[in-house]
């Protein structure tokens, strides 16, 4: 199973979660990152995600490999959208199954944090006033003003 996915289409959490089922797993934890309607006090209308696909898939797979070594889990998966997203859409989905809940929570947190830090994907916010801007990891603009 490919564990890190870049997806041009709407993410389906149920379908993604099915891949992680295991008779040994007593716990399943998932995280959904969704497009919100405001950032830095500006009204956001939509987002665009751009990825350097070849390297994003390598780095994403690397993070999931690290995660499975660090935590006692059964399966993990992360799917990230590319293209244009509307408010409320799922931008990123992480799911982890494990025997016990502690490992699933910790591993899920690890994966989303590392993906946001390391995977070459960029967010361009389009604002209600017609402007748009690329963001840094802390959600501040690349070129303020």
């Amino acid at each position, binding site marked *: 199973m490919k564990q890190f996915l870049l997806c041009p289409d709407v993410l389906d959490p149920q379908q993604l979660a099915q891949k992680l089922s295991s008779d040994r797993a007593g716990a399943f934890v998932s995280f959904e990152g969704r497009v919100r309607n405001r950032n830095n006090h500006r009204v956001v209308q939509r987002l665009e995600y751009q990825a350097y696909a070849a390297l994003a898939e390598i780095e994403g797979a690397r993070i999931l490999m690290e995660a499975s070594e660090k935590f006692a889990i059964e399966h993990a998966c992360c799917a990230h959208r590319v293209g244009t997203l509307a408010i409320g859409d799922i931008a990123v989905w992480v799911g982890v199954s494990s025997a016990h809940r502690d490992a699933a929570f910790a591993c899920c947190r690890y994966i989303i944090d590392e993906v946001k830090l390391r*995977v070459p994907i960029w967010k361009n916010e389009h604002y209600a006033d017609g402007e748009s801007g690329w963001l840094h990891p802390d959600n501040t603009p690349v070129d303020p003003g």
Partner: protein
Amino acid sequence: MKYTLRYFASLADQAGCAEETWETALSEPRALYAELRARHGFTLDASRLRVAVNGEFADWHLALADGDEIVFLPPVSGG
């Protein structure tokens, strides 16, 4: 040397393209970025970027080869 350069996010906007072929005598990513910055007016300092060569993260002082694909990566903002 002839390189293929790919641009993403703010660098693509400032270069006005997503990809270009670049001929130069330079053979180190750090010097190459300085040359491209002067050409395209990139606002990001090299200290804010990472560099990838042929689809893998690379060192700023790597010796580039003719035909390499080079990408300067702005700070990422996925998730």
